[in-house]
């Protein structure tokens, strides 16, 4: 790839990311505000009212225990929701054609949309973390693990949201996966409890849930405790990123749901 081509690709990538960020900010009432309100309620009800009766989880105050899970839940849901609605909206409004007729390579299209979705996930995650600081003292003993696990989690679910948007034919199709797959996996991924509380079969089943590894890696970053080994968590997360990226690029190359 020549320098000129590399520069053009960078400009194209920056344009998609900028457009995505402008969209997030333009409709902030739909993108940034709801997770802040929802998570405040979670902290109030589960952390404050119920949490005070729960006591400790894994030797940590319950309010502190749920902070990483709630932040990761917001990151995952918003990354997924951003790319699925934005990319499907572009297909529905036909302005995806602006990208398809342009000379930019497929990886730039995918990277641009994923970067936009990851940014929304990170912004929302930061907002939720700020809300959490109103209820408890947040320390970050392992900042690199904290940041990398958030970025990997957001990337995985951005890529998954992209695949969903490619196959979606109507707006209902981008709501099915979050409702019937993402939300149950998130709630069963150890956001509100330690997996050690579960019966053996349920604990084993939880290990098949990718969100469980993301929540625990992030919990290790914030609290220094985790139900799984960090090595396994990172290997799985990187594996998902590679596999979903390959699927996304293949879908773009074939033009599935985009080119007739």
């Amino acid at each position, binding site marked *: 790839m020549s320098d000129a081509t590399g520069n053009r690709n960078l400009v194209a990538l*920056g344009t998609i990311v900028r457009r995505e960020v402008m969209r997030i900010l*333009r409709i902030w009432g739909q993108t940034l505000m709801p997770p802040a309100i929802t998570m405040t309620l979670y902290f109030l009800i589960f952390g404050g009212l119920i949490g005070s009766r729960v006591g400790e989880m894994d030797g940590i105050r319950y309010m502190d225990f749920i902070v990483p899970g709630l932040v990761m839940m917001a990151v995952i849901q918003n990354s997924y929701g951003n790319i699925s609605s934005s990319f499907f909206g572009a297909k529905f409004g036909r302005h995806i054609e*602006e990208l398809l007729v*342009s000379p930019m390579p497929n990886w730039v299209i995918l990277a641009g949309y994923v970067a936009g979705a990851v940014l929304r996930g990170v912004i929302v995650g930061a907002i939720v973390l700020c809300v959490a600081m109103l209820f408890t003292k947040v320390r970050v003993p392992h900042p690199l693990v904290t940041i990398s696990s958030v970025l990997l989690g957001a990337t995985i679910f951005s890529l998954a949201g992209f695949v969903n948007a490619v196959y979606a034919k109507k707006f209902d199709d981008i709501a099915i996966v979050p409702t019937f797959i993402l939300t149950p996996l998130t709630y069963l991924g150890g956001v509100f409890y330690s997996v050690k509380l579960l019966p053996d079969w349920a604990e084993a089943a939880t290990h098949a849930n990718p969100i469980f590894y993301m929540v625990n890696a992030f919990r290790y970053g914030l609290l220094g405790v985790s139900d799984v080994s960090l090595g396994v968590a990172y290997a799985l997360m990187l594996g998902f990123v590679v596999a979903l990226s390959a699927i996304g690029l293949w879908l773009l190359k074939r033009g599935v749901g985009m080119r*007739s």
Partner: protein
Amino acid sequence: MSLPSDGASPAPALRVSNLRKTYDNGVEALKGVSLDVAPGDFYALLGPNGAGKSTLIGIVSSLVNKTSGTVQVFGTDIDGDRDGAMRLLGLVPQEINFNMFEKPLDICVNYAGFYGIPRAQALVRAEEELKRAQLWDKADKMSRTLSGGMKRRLMIARAMMTRPRLLILDEPTAGVDIEIRRGMWQTLKAINAAGTTIILTTHYLEEAESLCRNLAIIDHGRIVEQGPMRALLAKLDVEGFLFDIDGSLPAQLPQIEGATLIAADDHTLDMDMPRAMDLNRVFAAFEAAGIRVRSMRTKSNRLEELFVRLTSKDANASQEQAA
């Protein structure tokens, strides 16, 4: 892949060879289409609805995957170097395809960005193109608030942001009033005069006749005629006229050998006659029948006549084949 340049014969702006497209539902939209468009040309691609025009344009602009055949834009093959070919191409599609929730300025600047044009340069170009499209005063308005004609002009401005060498317009004036349409013609003429090759599809045959130098007529996925506009129009051996009559028509219309004469209404006669026929014979017959002609005009657009003949001939042939 680029064709070798020998300096004497520049590569065609568009070369389509034996292009075929069969959709997943079995519809054969293109059945071996081949055409060349010379650099600098203003080329019309005509055909009835469903003839295959939009499929052809879709393949050239990489929105539709071809079944077989080759496409080259200024010698650059879309299979060998898709990105290089797309860099030379601008597309104004039939349907509005920009984000209605963005402003015209952002639409143009972002579009340029997708082609790798830096934002500072894109902002300058956007001002030029939006001014040319008479949309500069709407640059910061939400694009969904623009009128239909404005939206069409915005798509032309957007396509010109990348300074394409080949501009393809798929029915750019569909649904706009005559004043705006004529304004768009002036814009397209200026773009072509500045060196951009233009391929235009339209259902307004008057538009094609007044703008284009060469044309192809496509029907049922095949090119049924192509060549210079003048040469094709010269093939027409029949002309049509409308005569406005003073007073009422006689009960029995005169019989004129070789011509077909019918009453369009109580005060208008409609006539088709061979091009070689002497009009004095017609007027002599009118005189003898007591018909006084107040004025006369060409009945229809000549290109329309050619178009109807070629496409109806093709339809008849298809029906015969089917039978």
